[in-house]
């Protein structure tokens, strides 16, 4: 059995000469929220469409629960709930009637499934209001209700907070978190809003111009982007020993044989450099790094940043 719920191998989608998604390798772990972060047109929706079989990849593979999607759609898709792009429903029907169509086609056994899904997103059950009379926020909520109605194990949500008001955003964020923590769902969520992904995701993939630039846990990314002192020395092993013995400091990370980061900024850089030099180390770089998460994203996406 695969370690990952979703795994892509060199996933590529090419339209003419332009690559919308290029050699994408993402790894979504069981019971975690994976945030796919990228600017508009970065390739998030195309990626999600390929993960659901809505678009055929030009090359590469999609494996869900370790099985190739292309040959196992009938088995895999019923276990997935999705929201892709704008909500799509029949305008002449009510929310309940719309959901009933999809519940019938999915063969949802739970009679209360429609009511439960609507309750969860705060929409009334058996209301007479037609879908065409819904506001954008209500349409988005209904789309989320459709995604969760059949109690899927995996949720693929493309910009689920689009069109929601601030209270709605908070509510949706809260129940997405609950779905993951309380009901063990695995969730892949895309957004161009950094703060949203930072509030929700456990793991983050940064996509830009179709390519995955970074894939790490939020904790790792935060560590990378937090304030720290960077040292480039002749031996990080020896430097670590000096920090532990001379300064009783353990809040540092060793990147390689020469580079390390000290996360405690209360200690004087001058004192540390002196101690390193006195112990025979060569210090070629020592500076305080004050990069915010947004600065970090700006840097990895080539300076354009993410809203």
């Amino acid at each position, binding site marked *: 059995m695969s370690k990952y719920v979703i795994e892509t191998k060199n996933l590529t989608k090419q339209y003419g000469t332009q690559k919308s998604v290029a050699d994408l390798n993402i790894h979504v772990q069981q019971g975690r929220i994976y945030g796919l972060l990228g600017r508009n047109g970065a390739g998030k929706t195309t990626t999600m*469409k390929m993960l*659901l*079989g*809505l*678009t*055929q990849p030009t090359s590469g593979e999609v494996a869900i629960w370790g099985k190739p999607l292309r040959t196992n*759609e*009938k088995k895999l*898709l*019923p276990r*997935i709930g*999705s929201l*892709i*792009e*704008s909500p*799509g*429903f*029949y*305008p*002449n*029907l009510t929310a309940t*009637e719309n959901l*009933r*169509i*999809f519940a*019938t*086609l*999915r*063969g949802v056994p739970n009679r209360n499934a429609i009511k439960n899904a609507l309750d969860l997103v705060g929409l009334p059950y058996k209301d007479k209001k*037609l879908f065409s009379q819904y506001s954008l926020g209500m349409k988005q909520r209904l789309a989320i209700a*459709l995604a969760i109605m059949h109690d899927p194990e995996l949720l693929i949500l493309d910009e689920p907070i689009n069109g929601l008001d601030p209270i709605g955003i908070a509510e949706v964020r809260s129940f997405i978190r609950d779905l993951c923590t309380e009901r063990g769902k695995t969730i892949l969520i895309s957004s161009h809003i950094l703060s949203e992904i930072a509030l929700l995701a456990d793991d983050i993939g940064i996509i830009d111009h179709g390519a995955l630039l970074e894939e790490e846990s939020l904790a790792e990314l935060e560590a990378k982007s937090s304030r720290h002192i960077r040292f480039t020395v002749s031996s990080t092993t020896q430097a670590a020993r000096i920090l532990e013995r001379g300064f009783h400091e353990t809040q540092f990370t060793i990147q390689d044989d020469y580079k390390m980061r000290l996360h405690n900024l209360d200690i004087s850089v001058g004192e540390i450099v002196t101690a390193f030099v006195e112990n025979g180390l060569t210090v070629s770089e020592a500076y305080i790094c004050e990069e915010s998460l947004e600065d970090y994203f700006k840097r990895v996406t080539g300076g354009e940043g993410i809203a």
Partner: protein
Amino acid sequence: MLDLIKCEFMKLKRKKFIPFVFLSAFLFPIPITFLMATPRMLERYPNKTVLFDGLFNMVMGYGVIFLLPCIIGVIAAMLFFMERDNDTFKNLRTIPITSTQLIMAKIIVLFAFGIIFCLASMFATVICGSFSMEIHGIAYKLLVAIELGIFITAGTLPIIVLVVFFSKTYIFSILLCVFYSVASLTVETLFGTLPKWLCWLLPIPMTTLWGAGDMVKHGFPLNVTALEKIIPSTFQTVLILGLMAVISIYLIDFLYKKRGE
């Protein structure tokens, strides 16, 4: 498949055109009933029983043959444009429902509407005829109505291929189907002069020929002596229309898949 068909009907809820389908079944029986009451017509038909057969033949042979392709065209446009217009195909694909399954369900719904319309026309004819004529042979007329519903719907499928191919507006689809109906009726006026193969290649005129031949066999007072050589048998009609329907469904499926990509 049964669930899919059920859902296709559910999707048509509150569509204003659907009640119109039933109302339009009365569109031809009422004026034709009045026409049958004119002295010229009463002279042609010796008694009230034969007069009712004449009314039924005119409603089915002209009214239904003209109106049903238009109705099928409008419903087809509704059904086939529905997923595109409302962006619901992605919801169906992720269930997963294939475009072939969806197409088959929509085609079955079209056949259902074809049969329903013909039955409604038949009942409208019976209601209108009951005022001044003698109703008889209901079982056969019921059967012919169902057969015509199936045959005309199958015969309209080639035009549905064009509706899906152009994927334009509803108006365009309606115009296309009206043109098809008018062209079919025009061909029917030229039956004596056109070669047999051409009459058999055009589905609606061929259905009319079959209908006339079948009614004559069941005692309807129709003069088809000049057309005897070009009237197809039920087997030939089913075979040719079936073949056309299969090719049309294949093309609709191909086009729908292509549009969905």
